[in-house]
């Protein structure tokens, strides 16, 4: 009887798998070519709330499928590519990461003849410092860093909000902070007046000490989770990108957004093709498709970041296109600094500073050695005791 039962479960189990996977296979059947696109989280129009599903539209037009996945920070994108194996066809890193990848020969030169829509990209976004020869990247969006605040929880007036508020003890436990080194350091660097691309270790150390002082006030180091935490009223203050302002302000009426006048960081995210891409031709088609002003406009409408294409901008609702948050005055732009790539050695130094900020005080190596020796001693003691006991028995 028991054998029969097992047999029954087994058969049930197998048929369940077969039927289920067949249904799913039908649902997800793919053509021969699938390109892997690796983008930031919440950074594409995905068809929710009636918006155009950009990736599906691409498949509809070209028959090429898109395997879309997302990353949290430039550094983790770099790690995933550097770690080999993962072969993406289109990646969308930010400025400084692009120049680092160009230097390390990780990107393919683009064939601009295959990207006729490149002509729509504004002149001011061509040949920027991260890609001076304009061979490796096509701008996707750009933006600035500002501060989100919950009007119910923050009593300062909007005009008085600047980077210093993130160090204000009054908001202890209500502040969120970037979970990536460059963005987090930038805030402190602007606050104490150091260049974002400083080459002096001492200046980075100074910023690191500043961030360490801030740590007790910080509720959590997060990236896209700020959407959730800010709109639920979990946190009062969070620095993040201006492109997300539209979404957040709409979700919770109490949230405001300020770009501090003292200065901020301006970034450009651009589409690139890694050296080891498997479908570079299809990847070019994807890039070209994304530059189509109509698609770009649909995409921008959903994600809320600023577009490098005037043609796309002109298709937006004038309310959005003239929005000071996404397309701020020259006054603000003038004070904005752009990241550039830093030397490897300095990057490693910054990484260790960053881990130290997050883990608290630098630990004493002897503590670890002591723990290890303690464990071994404990093992020996228990071992000897047992031997003794066995002998007496």
């Amino acid at each position, binding site marked *: *009887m*028991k*054998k029969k*039962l*097992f*047999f*029954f*479960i*087994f058969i049930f*189990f197998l048929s369940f*798998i077969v039927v*289920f*996977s067949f249904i*799913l*296979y039908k*649902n*997800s059947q793919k053509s021969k070519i699938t390109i*892997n696109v*690796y983008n930031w*989280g*919440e950074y594409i129009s995905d068809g*929710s709330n009636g918006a155009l599903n950009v990736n*599906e539209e691409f498949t509809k037009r070209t028959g090429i499928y898109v*395997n*879309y*996945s*997302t990353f*949290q920070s430039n550094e983790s994108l770099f790690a995933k590519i550097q*770690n*080999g*194996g*993962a*072969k*993406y066809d289109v990646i969308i890193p930010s400025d400084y990461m692009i120049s680092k990848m160009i230097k390390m020969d990780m990107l393919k030169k683009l064939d601009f003849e295959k990207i006729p829509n490149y002509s729509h990209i504004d002149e001011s976004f061509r040949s920027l410092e991260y890609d001076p020869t304009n061979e490796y990247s096509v701008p996707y969006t750009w933006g600035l860093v500002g501060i989100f605040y919950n009007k119910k929880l923050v009593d300062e007036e909007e005009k008085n909000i600047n980077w210093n508020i993130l160090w204000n003890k009054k908001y202890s436990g209500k502040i969120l902070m970037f979970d990536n080194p460059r963005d987090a350091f930038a805030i402190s660097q602007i606050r104490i007046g150091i260049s974002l691309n400083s080459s002096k270790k001492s200046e980075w150390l100074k910023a690191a000490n500043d961030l360490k002082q801030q740590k007790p006030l910080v509720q959590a180091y997060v*990236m*896209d*989770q700020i*959407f*959730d935490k800010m709109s*639920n009223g979990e946190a009062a203050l969070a620095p993040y990108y201006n492109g997300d302002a539209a*979404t957040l302000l709409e979700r919770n009426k109490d949230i405001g957004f300020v770009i501090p006048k003292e200065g901020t960081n301006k970034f450009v995210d651009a589409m690139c093709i890694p050296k080891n891409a498997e479908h570079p031709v299809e990847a070019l088609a994807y890039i070209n498709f994304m530059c189509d002003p109509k698609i770009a406009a649909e995409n921008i409408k959903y994600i809320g970041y600023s577009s490098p294409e005037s043609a796309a901008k002109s298709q937006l609702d004038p309310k959005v296109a003239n929005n000071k948050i996404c397309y701020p005055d020259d006054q603000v732009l003038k004070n904005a600094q752009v990241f550039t790539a830093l030397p490897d050695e300095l990057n490693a130094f910054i990484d260790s500073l960053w881990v130290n900020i997050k883990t608290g005080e630098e630990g004493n190596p002897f503590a670890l050695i002591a723990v290890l020796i303690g464990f071994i001693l404990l093992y020996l003691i228990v071992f000897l005791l047992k031997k003794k006991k066995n002998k007496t028995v």
Partner: protein
Amino acid sequence: MKSKLIYKIYMSLAFFFLYSPLLVLIIFSFNESKSRNVWSGFSLKWYLKLFSDKEILHAIFNTIVVAAVASILATIIGTIACLGILKLNKFSKKLIMSINNIPIVNPESVTGVGLMLLFVFSYNNFKILRPGIFTLILSHTTFCLPYVVLSVLPKLRQINQYIYEAAQDLGCAPFKAFFKVILPDIMPGIASGMVMAFTLSMDDFVISYFTSGTVQTLPIAIYSMTRKVVSPEINAISTILFAVVFLLLLAANFKQVKIYK
């Protein structure tokens, strides 16, 4: 009888602790609004949305393919290995069993990192084993194998060896003897090993996270959902998973109780 009452209270508290998070997940999967802790009305829209979400459907497909292939592969290799292990001398047996235990006792993240280094190394040097669904299957098979061996070996040790020899003496070919005599006896061990392998593989996040390359399985998709703007679709997934598992276990248990009676 006072102790009985205390037992009951303690047990109810324990179950409350174990089930309250799941209850929260399930209740809010039927919530009208996007909020995850304010109730605003009943709706099934997150389920509809889930079933039209190609990314998630594809992730479910990947998960099932990997789990099915890895558990079958692990069961076959593990079962055959058990036959051999039993005949080895004491020293080699001990050595193999210690190696078998490594993936079980090793922290998952270390296993994942090690496999990732292996795949990257082999890809960079020999251009084979590019991280993807294939490496995912390989690594899942690796961490399932020990469990299959541990559940088949005891069953194999219990069976009477002479039956096999008797079958051969009576003119049965070795392979036929195996299928007719040994296999039915160790079937419960094989089945439970395979079910265990399947569920372990379905549920694994850490090792897949390090070895999947660009492929997304359901746990990986869930992980990227928890990092982003969290949508109640995630609650809908958990509710469905819970219902499926609950029904399966209920069916199995019901059958068993009937047999006992």
